């Protein structure tokens, strides 16, 4: 099958690759770029394990073609920590026991960071709604919600201090 060249920014770095038109973004990330943080739980856009941030929006990368990301700006879980320092969400997930098997975690974290950018002070109901595209089979969500609330608070305090 004919291949296409794509160029995009992933976690702040310019990358290029050659893909088939049908190559899914998740496969491009995992198999060509070796970014295996985002996972595949369904390939039908239900579970959210593959969630990444594309051009300022949460997307399920199992239902985006790699060519659609051409020229785009992408953030994955691997790009969350900055300068060796964990993102407040990462720290809160560990502190509040917001993960068990860890399979949903990368997608959950990337989704949560977008949610908090859109709404820095979400209520519990808003958080639950905001992560409803991401399934977790282990935690029952309660500690994930708690972690996101706590991270939001830390982030607001940081913001205020700056």
């Amino acid at each position, binding site marked *: 099958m004919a291949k296409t060249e794509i160029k995009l920014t992933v976690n702040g770095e310019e990358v290029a690759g050659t893909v*088939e038109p*049908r*190559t899914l973004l998740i*496969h491009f990330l*995992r*198999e060509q770029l*070796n*970014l*295996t*943080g*985002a*996972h*595949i*739980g*369904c*390939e*039908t856009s*239900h*579970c959210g*394990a593959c969630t990444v941030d594309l051009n300022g929006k949460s997307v399920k990368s199992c239902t985006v073609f790699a060519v659609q990301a051409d020229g785009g700006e992408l953030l*994955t*879980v*691997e790009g*969350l*920590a900055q300068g060796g320092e*964990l993102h407040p969400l*990462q720290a809160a*997930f*560990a*502190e509040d*026991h917001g*993960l*068990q*098997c*860890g*399979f*949903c*975690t*990368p997608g959950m*974290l990337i989704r949560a960071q977008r949610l908090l950018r859109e709404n820095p002070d979400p209520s519990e109901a808003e*958080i*639950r*709604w905001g*992560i*409803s*595209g*991401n*399934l*977790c*089979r*282990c*935690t*029952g*969500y*309660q*500690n*994930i*919600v708690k972690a996101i609330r706590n991270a939001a608070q830390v982030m607001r305090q940081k913001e205020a201090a700056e």
Partner: protein
Amino acid sequence: MSETQTETQAETQTETQTATTAEREAALGGIGCDKRRKEDARFIRGQGNFVDDIKMPKMVFGDFVRSPHAHARIKSIDKEKALAVPGVIAVLTADDLRPLNLHWMPTLAGDRQAVLADEKVHFQNQEVAFVIAEDRYAASDGIQLVEVDYEELPVLIDPKKALDDDAPILREDVKDKDEVGQGPRRHPNHIFNWQSGDKDATDKAFDGAAVTVKEEMFYQRVHPSPLETCGCVASMDAVSGRLTLYGTFQAPHVVRTVVSLISGLAESNIRVVSPDVGGGFGNKVGPYPGYVCSVVGSIVLGRPVKWIESRIDNISTTAFARDYHMSCELAADKDGRITGLRANVLADHGAFNSHAQPMKWPAGFFNIVTGSYDIPTAHVTVDGVYTNKAPGGVAYRCSFRVTEAAYLIERMLDVLAQKLGIDKAEIRLRNFIKAEQFPYQSCLGWEYDSGDYTTALKQAMKAVGYEELRKEQAEKRARGELMGIGIATFTEIVGAGPSRNCDILGIKMFESCEIRVHPTGSAIARIGTKSTGQGHETTYAQIIASEIGIPSDLITVEEGDTDVGPYGLGTYGSRSTPVGAAAAARAGRKIRDKARKIAAHMLEVSESDLEWDVDRFTVKGVPDLSAAMKDIAMAAYSNLPEGLEHGLEVVDYYDPPNMTYPFGAYICVVDIDRHTGEISVRKFYALDDCGTRINPMIIEGQVHGGLTEAFAIAMGQEIVFDEIGNVLGASLLDYFLPTAVETPHWETDHTVTPSPHHPIGAKGVGESPNVGGVPAFSNAVVDAFAHLDVTHMPMPHTAWRVWQTCHDLGIDK
């Protein structure tokens, strides 16, 4: 010095001693603290290593051609077009595996299962051919072009018709056998008949009973659906003749044995590795055709072969759970004291008997069905049958068939209460096994280790304000509103198990732990289980820390690599804590025994002069004279008494003397909209007693997760088939996995009744919330209709079904 002064001094000294002891204890991070998890560091960075993350040079990708039919004869398979697809390397069928005798594989239940369909397909989506290609896209192109010609056969979907004289015979390969691994059978579609209890005594109890109740209940077919599906990478090194098999295995050592048995390779030439596993819940215990085909592919091609299930493959082919058609009767006196129980079950096992239970237990531990109640006589029968459905019958977040049993007895208690007009909490209090009756011998043969059910239920009732809730319910009923209160006071049986009655393929269900203490005072421990999210790297380290006095932060825990750890039977049936943690504690004690000898040598006293104090041995009566574990570790390699071997390492194989019996008291409150059938869970309170608590934070997390899975099962999960065997809804569009929006808020609580026979008194908790949660939800829903003489409603309680009940009762307008 006056007497008073001496006393004061002594007191001060004890105080400082206590303070430092507490400090040293805190520094250990041992049993009982909310230690944050070691494994999280990699997961929150996206650095976990799951099987699909594995990449190897020259690795290829395999996937299945699957049957569209539930029952059909294969007339021909044409691979030509598929093999012409660029990137497709090979297409394997049963005929290719036959010369190797690998077209069938043994199941853990003594039956056999087709690896690739041999002449016939027995369920929809059964594996027919394995296409191996350079990448997953080419494999999927190839799959489209494999042409299979089928002749459709009559389909058997309803297990109640399986034993009819004119039922189609499904398993022609075993049709003449009078048993298929689990005792005598009476029809070609019959798998086993299993009984427990005393039939005559039970009949007698019913004959003389003041009151009897009977209910038919169907515990629907569901699927564990961990977020990560099953998969593997098989890599045969043609030069060394060594096979490495990475995969989503809850029991890697057993997989190695199975692979050896079916491939003929020596176990020493097989390395099985479970990397990080994205949830198991029973889905990842048994062997699947994908593993066998990948291994064969790798042997034939000399290249690593990866196979990863899609979600639809996962739900429709590997490891369903439940599918029990149950009928139950209780006999009782006029006060509701149960005098007898009778249960008959028809178990739909699908096309092959591939359930994963200890081998002597075709119906698992279903005879825990007398639950938390002092029932003097009971009789239980379970018949397993074949149907044209996917094989399985695994323990989905429960110990073998315990959830079916707990659901049945907890529902039946409510049915009896309603018949007699007794409160549903009261009927439980009247029938509970009393605290002073432990150890308790159940009439179906189990010895319950410990429990205090009355205290647990009373604590739960108080916490939720039970009396007020019942008052509110009465007021609402008077206004025509629907409110339900569901109680479940379940007892589990976990930790398989004692070698006298638990084995898999003849291998006893022990667990193992190896500990090596390094010279500078840190340690590594290896256990035969495998965490699939339970946090073993943290909790085992906590247990060992408390036993050997080395901080848990300095104890590395490894599991899941058969080249590295000692043989163990794996993680399922909540056995890691009852069996694995026991091995860890005992290994720790063996380390301490040797450490005591070394300490005696260091301090130049006799061993009997020493006492253990958190992280050191001190000389009795001379607390200042002590040898810390850190120094003992160095001495083990540098300064030994004569006659002692160097090093500080042990292995312990633990054969549990009994199962453990965790229990709980759950109360659920629901409000139901009679116009739409929608249920809202107002409150869910879960009190769990899992004995000694190793890490309360992790326990709570386990309870949240288990309750959420219980919620899913009770409220929405069901794998349905149409009459010709099509799976209706095997994608996440149809199969219910709750999101954060539907999932209720959980309130957790606990009592602590340690297990008397477990080295640290722990019982296991991961599955309790699922076992107790399902009947709590179901009881709440039915309770909302109890005043309208409804005694049972089938799960799952979807809005549509509940509305149907409202409609039939004429209350939906």
